[in-house]
């Protein structure tokens, strides 16, 4: 087998990176919610799907506005955050006293409901959003062309990660969130409104999923079923990186992005099997993930 063209490898690596950034956005929300609320949110993929559909909706509403795409992204992701907050405040919070399985199944009920909701509102056909005008072009890299929009995503991903880290580690609310992950009873008895904090955390997690969906809308077809497709991959990312671990999620996303991107080239038939094997192996050897910490309890 001859060595493939280096420019081709670079392009493949970059598309893997683009995918990794979307995975990171979604999985970091999933990991945040799990870290604080101890709920594994199956509906996270559905929130991502809603983000994409709502972006389509808002783009069609702001047809002649300048920067319509960017406004649509902002409105769509914030709408998803509000929907997430409402779900947590009025429904999910009532199930915290029950067994974990009940919470898990409730989020699965949301998957079913939201997938049909999207079908009823937007139909079953493929929808698409065009790329924003300023990022329409492509950049030549070693003789091959790579879309500007993807490069923007590759830069935006780490920027959001950094912002997120700063919020968690340098602000008052960030400190509350980290404290809630360690001991929610203690935090409550110190006078912090833990219920409101939980709603906020769920809304932030939902916002990240919605943002992922909004930003992915110009490069994939918006179709029913994109929710269940992404959620298992997001699970793999958080499991590989470590449930509740911030940097672990980034690492997991980078690994999965590259494995998906190159796996298809090297062993097209086994690439899909390989990512699940990766998940199983990590769970067997280090159940708490590559960068996570073992649970104390």
């Amino acid at each position, binding site marked *: 087998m001859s060595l493939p063209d280096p420019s081709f490898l670079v392009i493949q690596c970059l598309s893997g990176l683009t995918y990794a950034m979307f995975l990171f956005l979604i999985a970091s929300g999933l990991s945040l919610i799990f870290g604080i609320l101890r709920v594994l949110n199956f509906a996270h993929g559905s929130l991502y799907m809603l983000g994409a559909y709502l972006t389509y909706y808002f783009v069609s509403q702001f047809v002649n506005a300048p920067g319509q795409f960017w406004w649509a992204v902002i409105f769509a992701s914030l709408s998803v955050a509000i929907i997430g907050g409402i779900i947590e405040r009025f429904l999910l919070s009532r199930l915290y006293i029950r067994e974990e399985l009940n919470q898990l199944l409730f989020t699965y009920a949301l998957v079913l409901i939201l997938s049909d909701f999207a079908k009823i509102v937007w139909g079953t056909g493929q929808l698409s959003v065009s790329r924003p005008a300023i990022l329409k072009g492509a950049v030549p890299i070693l003789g091959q062309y790579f879309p500007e929009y993807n490069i923007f995503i590759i830069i935006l991903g780490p920027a959001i990660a950094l912002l997120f880290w700063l919020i968690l580690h340098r602000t008052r609310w960030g400190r509350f969130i980290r404290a809630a992950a360690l001991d929610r009873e203690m935090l409550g008895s110190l006078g912090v409104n833990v219920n409101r904090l939980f709603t906020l955390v769920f809304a932030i997690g939902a916002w990240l999923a919605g943002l992922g969906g909004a930003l992915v809308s110009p490069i994939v077809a918006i179709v029913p079923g994109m929710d269940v497709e992404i959620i298992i991959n997001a699970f793999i990312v958080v499991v590989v990186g470590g449930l509740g671990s911030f940097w672990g999620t980034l690492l997991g996303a980078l690994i999965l992005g590259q494995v998906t991107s190159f796996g298809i080239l090297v062993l097209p038939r086994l690439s899909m099997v390989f990512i699940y094997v990766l998940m199983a192996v990590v*769970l*067997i050897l280090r*159940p708490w993930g590559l960068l996570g910490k073992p649970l104390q309890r």
Partner: protein
Amino acid sequence: MSKENWFLTILVLLLAFLPLTESRFYVFLGTDILIMGLFAVSLNLLLGYTGLVSFGQAAYFGIGAYTCALLMKKASVAFPLAFVAAAVFGAIAAMIIGFFCIRLTKIYFAMLTLAFSQIVWAIAFKWNSLTGGDTGLIGVNFPAHLDSPIRFFYFTLAVVALSFYVLRKLVNSPFGRILTTIRENPERTEFIGINVKLFQLIAFMISGFFAAIAGALFGIFNHSIFPDFIFWPQSAEVLIMSLLGGIYNFFGPVVGAAVLLYLRMQVTSFTQYWPLILGTILALLLFFFPGGIVGFLKSRQVFTRKNKCS
């Protein structure tokens, strides 16, 4: 015989007369419910009796379905042998997968069972030459001597009734009591000198064995097998069936399977939005009837009895 056993014997006899209605619909639905009921009960051995939330039960169902059909179609193995082989394969797969899974607890256990079932799914999806990949394995015919829906219904009834008999004996035996003890408190069970992991593994294998039987039956009943049988929403659906019926009663999952399948058949005849209805049922169940249908009926029974006493 206890009251419950009498009740069941009569139910089985009644079911045996079902084909006399000459309704193809009821025979079809009856077969479907029996098979999925067995699948749900096999899961519930882990879920309700041992306290293990398996999110990958569809793996053994799929392995059973593919093994039986492939042995019959590609290797021309006689049906009885293929059927037994399917169950044994299911148990072996469960032993290998369970060996790793039982080391973990709670959410990690659920995630690992999910990962393994997705591996099985991806193999079935990608191994075109063997499984037919995405198009599935089609043209799985009724085996000789069972070549009509009614005959196959009787065969299913016999297999499922026998499986229930064995499983019920099992959960009421000292072995079953140990499983319940593990569910209630694994640490204390360990302290009284019981090898918890070993018992969990055996329960996992038995569960895989019966799930594979259900899968083998379903593959023939459906005349075709698709990778979707193993995809994770299938595992979620059987969890919902168990929960809907009630996981703290042996026959709860069967009731759940019956209600869900009957509803699906009715609902899908006038709307395509079955998931929406299923999701709503599930949410209502979680909020208002956490004990499932059987749990709810039992609690009412206790309630009325108390009223009579006072």
